[in-house]
């Protein structure tokens, strides 16, 4: 494979844990999760969720909450990369993952059609303008490749992996990559119907975990080739070293019980990064707090890294943000490397005897050069990202 270095020159994150990366880091240090009752829509269901409370008005697009969330995170990432005004000078690709924004599921539109045989088409027009990557590309005037990944819960991680492929194949010089998703009544009902939502705040990897909480947000990284960064006088000690993705080929809704697809994904990501598990300082796990996910993922992480690896799930701070999760968690992984520490895994109290490892229970210093973010998706897809940090001598 082409091993052209790809730097991470900007990070943007928006979730219930904070409106910016810095806010999120502060929430991580405080250890206080932000979940609570749903306020964005009415539902008789009473599962807590993690809503974004302070979406800046500048980025609001009427009826396009996912796009709005993405634009906020993209702006933060571009600000850090010092690219806000410079972007049109480069070949810029946009690859973002989502689930909700890809579906034409406007309940009012459909209710009207059902009852009268006709319905106003404004929701349809909004939907047709709301392809996530296209909408972001238009907003920032990016003219490179554009692709929206709809791979369920690994969408954000896969989008970053696709952007890595683009950059290493010379399809663009800079890529805006990650994921975004809004909290929506439709998946809220759907996940409840699957019996995998918790009525309490989620507790990833905990013995007594009862399921996931949904969340919303956006996580975005700015990736660029080292040559491009050097040309414009930019630098970063963070880089994207590898991406692996493999299907379980097992079941529509359940992960392979032994996590075979995840294990293969990790091996592929290590191969691309040219490292082994021993080079990895910590893993930001998918850790949804469902019985099946955490059991399968925990087994694989213990097998691949050994039970002593520092593992955390940040879903206790953000909820499960679906298509945004892989993007947010890539940002959090990069943040952990940059800050040299990872937060306690919110919600965890007791080790599950069926999971041969426990997540970190207090803020933990890390000094390794590499960290991994894992994603497991509905549909049986798995993704692993290897993120690195150059340690100056």
């Amino acid at each position, binding site marked *: *494979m082409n091993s052209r270095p790809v730097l991470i020159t900007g990070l943007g994150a928006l979730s219930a844990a904070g409106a910016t990366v810095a806010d999120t880091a502060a929430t991580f240090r405080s250890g206080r999760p932000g979940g609570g009752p749903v306020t964005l829509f009415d*539902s*008789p*269901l009473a599962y807590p969720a993690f809503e974004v409370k302070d979406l800046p008005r500048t980025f609001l697009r009427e009826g396009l909450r996912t796009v709005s969330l993405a634009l906020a995170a993209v702006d933060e990432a571009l600000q850090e990369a010092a690219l806000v005004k410079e972007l049109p000078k480069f070949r810029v690709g946009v690859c973002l993952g989502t*689930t909700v924004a*890809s*579906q*034409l*599921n406007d*309940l009012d539109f*459909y*209710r009207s*059609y*059902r009852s009268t*045989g006709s319905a106003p*088409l404004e929701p349809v027009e909004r939907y*047709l303008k709301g*392809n996530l*990557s*296209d909408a972001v590309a238009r907003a920032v005037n990016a003219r490179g*490749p*554009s*692709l*929206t*990944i*709809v*791979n*369920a819960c690994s969408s954000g991680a*896969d989008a970053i992996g*696709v952007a890595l*492929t*683009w950059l290493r*194949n010379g399809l663009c010089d800079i890529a805006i990559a990650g994921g975004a998703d809004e909290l929506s*009544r*439709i*998946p*809220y*009902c*759907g*996940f*409840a*119907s*699957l019996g995998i939502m918790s009525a309490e705040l989620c507790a990833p990897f905990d013995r007594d975990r009862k399921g996931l909480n949904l969340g919303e947000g956006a996580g975005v990284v700015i990736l660029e080739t080292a040559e491009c960064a050097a040309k414009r006088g930019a630098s970063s000690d963070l880089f994207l070293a590898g991406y692996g*993705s*493999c*299907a*379980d*080929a*097992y*079941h*529509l*809704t359940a992960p392979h019980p032994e996590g*075979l*697809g995840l294990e293969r994904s990790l091996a*592929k990501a290590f191969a691309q990064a040219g490292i082994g598990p021993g080079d990895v300082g910590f893993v930001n796990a998918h850790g949804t707090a469902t019985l099946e996910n955490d059991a399968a993922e925990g087994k694989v992480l213990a097998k691949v890294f050994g039970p002593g690896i520092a593992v955390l799930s940040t879903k206790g701070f953000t909820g499960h943000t679906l298509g945004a999760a892989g993007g947010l968690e890539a940002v959090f992984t990069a943040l952990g490397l940059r800050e040299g520490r990872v937060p306690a895994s919110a919600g965890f109290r007791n080790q599950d005897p069926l999971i041969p490892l426990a997540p970190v229970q207090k803020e933990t210093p890390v000094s390794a050069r590499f960290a991994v973010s894992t994603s497991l*998706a*509905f*549909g*049986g*897809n798995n993704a692993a990202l290897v993120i690195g940090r150059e340690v100056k001598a």
Partner: protein
Amino acid sequence: MKIIGIGTLFSGGRGIDAFQQALAKGWQAPSPLACRDRTLPAYQVDLDGMADRTVLKKLRRADKLSKIAVVAASDAVADSGLGAAEQQKMGVIVATAFGAHATTFAFLDGILEYGDAAVSPTIFSNSVHNAAASYISSALAIQGPTLTVTQFFFSFQAALQLADAWLREGRVEDVLVGAVDQVGEVMGYIAASRLAIARDGRIKPFVFSPAEAVPGEGAAFFVMSSRDRGSAYCTVDGLRFHDDLSGPVRSDLDILDADGLSIDESSYISSLVPGVPAAAYAPLYGSMMIGSAFSCAAGALMLKEQRCFASPVPDNPRGLAIVREPADSSIEFIRCIRYNCSTDRAVIELKKA
């Protein structure tokens, strides 16, 4: 990258042979799609009439979109001749403009009829965009990277671009890449409200404006390979997006994806090159944002067979050079050209293997 296997499923039948026969046979009338108090013509896939004891029996709980995708994907893999070990390692990229919208609306039916707490988990599972890709990977035992992507008009082209990049970087040696979409009552209502529907059932691609549509559904899948195989249909020689005008235009035939999804499709005229005949095959399978996948299949067939198929509806008020009769031809290059509603363009360049 080379196209080494093709599978198609559309209103005209299943398999690349059925597609080739449809190309040879010419226009066939669509069937009526009921949308409440009216009907409109549509090219619909009849799964009920399909005899299949191998693939579909693994998909009893799947929805129509997933079944269409798996059948076409399965046929593409079989057509490629790849062995089980190669198949297991291949990548999968499924492109769709709208995903399982009919299933999504069925899920909304559940909310409206029974309430938030009594919806069907099976319907929800099938409504997720990557359900079709999941069924493909499990039904065909494919364990490589498996993605679902959506980019409206350019979903298939973007998927093809990624497949090429995966092959170039060595992530996989073969990729199953294809596109699927379906029509349904609500989508029919939306189409009838937003577009001009060809009431006579004939898409007339060379009329351009006002352009008329006939909604369609189906799937076209391809096995792309970086390996040198003797039986390839053709090579995907290039993909150009938007204003990419680099390099010379090489074409012996231009396939236009004009299908009435924009009211004014005059942009296609600017893409035509003097002396290069044009063809358009949407009248065979219907108007679909992923219709480019069928054009690509038609181009691949023609390059392999060295035979041009006639445009099935040759109405041609501007007197353009179009393919009116099927004929054996010496074809080296074919371009498949698609414009979206913003007149952005994507071109798939095919070359004889």
